């Protein structure tokens, strides 16, 4: 468990995008389909300052925004918004 956590937090710095969702089903499905398609995606507690919605948001590589939107459309993933939100 500890090893996995280190691995996840290690790569997160380069992921400057955050996707927010209305409901957690879509956040978890988004993570699952992006990983399946070979994209980096990390579920994080949703930052309150960008969304009051469900508990989780998804950190991802912002430069892949267009691809990500296409994948979401293909897999019926509904998201609230996509933010450029580098880790402070």
């Amino acid at each position: 468990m500890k090893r996995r956590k280190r691995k996840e937090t290690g790569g997160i710095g380069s992921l400057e995008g955050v996707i927010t969702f209305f409901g957690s089903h879509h956040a978890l499905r988004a993570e699952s389909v992006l990983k399946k398609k070979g994209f980096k995606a990390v579920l994080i507690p949703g930052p309150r300052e960008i969304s009051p919605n469900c508990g989780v948001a998804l950190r991802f590589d912002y430069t892949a925004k267009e691809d990500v939107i296409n994948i979401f459309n293909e897999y019926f993933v509904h998201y609230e918004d996509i933010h450029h939100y580098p880790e402070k």
Partner: protein
Amino acid sequence: MKLYYFDNAATSWPKPDSVIRAMEHFFHRIGGNPGRSGHIKAIEAGKVVLNTRELLASMFNIKDPSRIVFTKNATEALNTTLYGVLREGDHAVTTSMEHNSVMRPFNHLKEMGVDLSVARADQTGTVHVDAIKDRIKENTKLVAVIHASNVTGTINDIEKIGRLCKQRNILFLVDAAQTAGVVPIDVDRMNIDFLAFSGHKGLLGPQGTGGLFIRHEKALDPMTRGGTGSLSDKEEQPVFLPDRYESGTLNVIGLAGLGEGVKFILNHGVESIMKHDSRLLDIFLNEVQGDSRFALYGPCGGPGQTGVLSVNIRDISSSKAGDILNRKYGILTRIGLHCAPRAHGSIGTFPDGTVRFSWGYFTKEKDIIKASRALKEIAGTN
């Protein structure tokens, strides 16, 4: 005494070991509340629910898994649809083979001003599409049909009825309590708008699980409103799926088990499970058909019947026969009216009922032989 379980139409038993292991794993290792937080246990619990939803979506050819919402059983899914769609002045069509999970809500809705017509099945329990067509009116909003009867196992031609509903622009509800996991279902090919299913029968999950596929959420008011983990800043119910219909904490441990049940079926193939059930039916029929001591109900053979056979022994009540099977032979059946009085009316067994044998994936040929021989012994000593 060794027991022979012939009550799979009520709830399947045994379950695959993987179902039990997944439930243990959830209790021991996961245990969070999905959608309620961003911590690792909440996320892991959410993944359990997502996994089960995706597996069910692949089983029923549902492209968007969020269109499946979980309920505690098929009855709750059916009630959600009937009460969520129908309003005073609407007309609905159903069939004489329905279970009380549909008939009782409909009778209550009639008191609230919903107009209902019932299409009668033939003596084998088959509902013909013309019987439904004849009852459609200008204001028909919904057609509700049981996919397979829990009394006779008769499988209805859902695809034909679905096509009719689509042509007439009428919502189509299918009760798949007896068929999910044992008869192939494709919501697109069959034009199903609402599919209610049980998790603890053919899908091999634990009791307390079921669900509803929803094609048109705009046509369906939720039955329950409350906390969903989403839109926590608002006091109004979310409008998006699945949250609109999933208020309060889900039965996540049950869904952990259900996911493994569905996986087990997908690995073996619904078609091959159906073939297994059908082969056992042929063996059963081969033993008892043509014997004047027995009355057999349903289509009695062919692909139009699930792993269910309703029987009566001449001059012995179903309750007495069921009691002897249970106590003398360890054969566990369900006797009586099976919560479907009008279905028994259709096949001519109301109010006496029948002895219902229902088997499943884990039933063996030798169990069927044992059951049929027991029936013959009971008939012989009468």
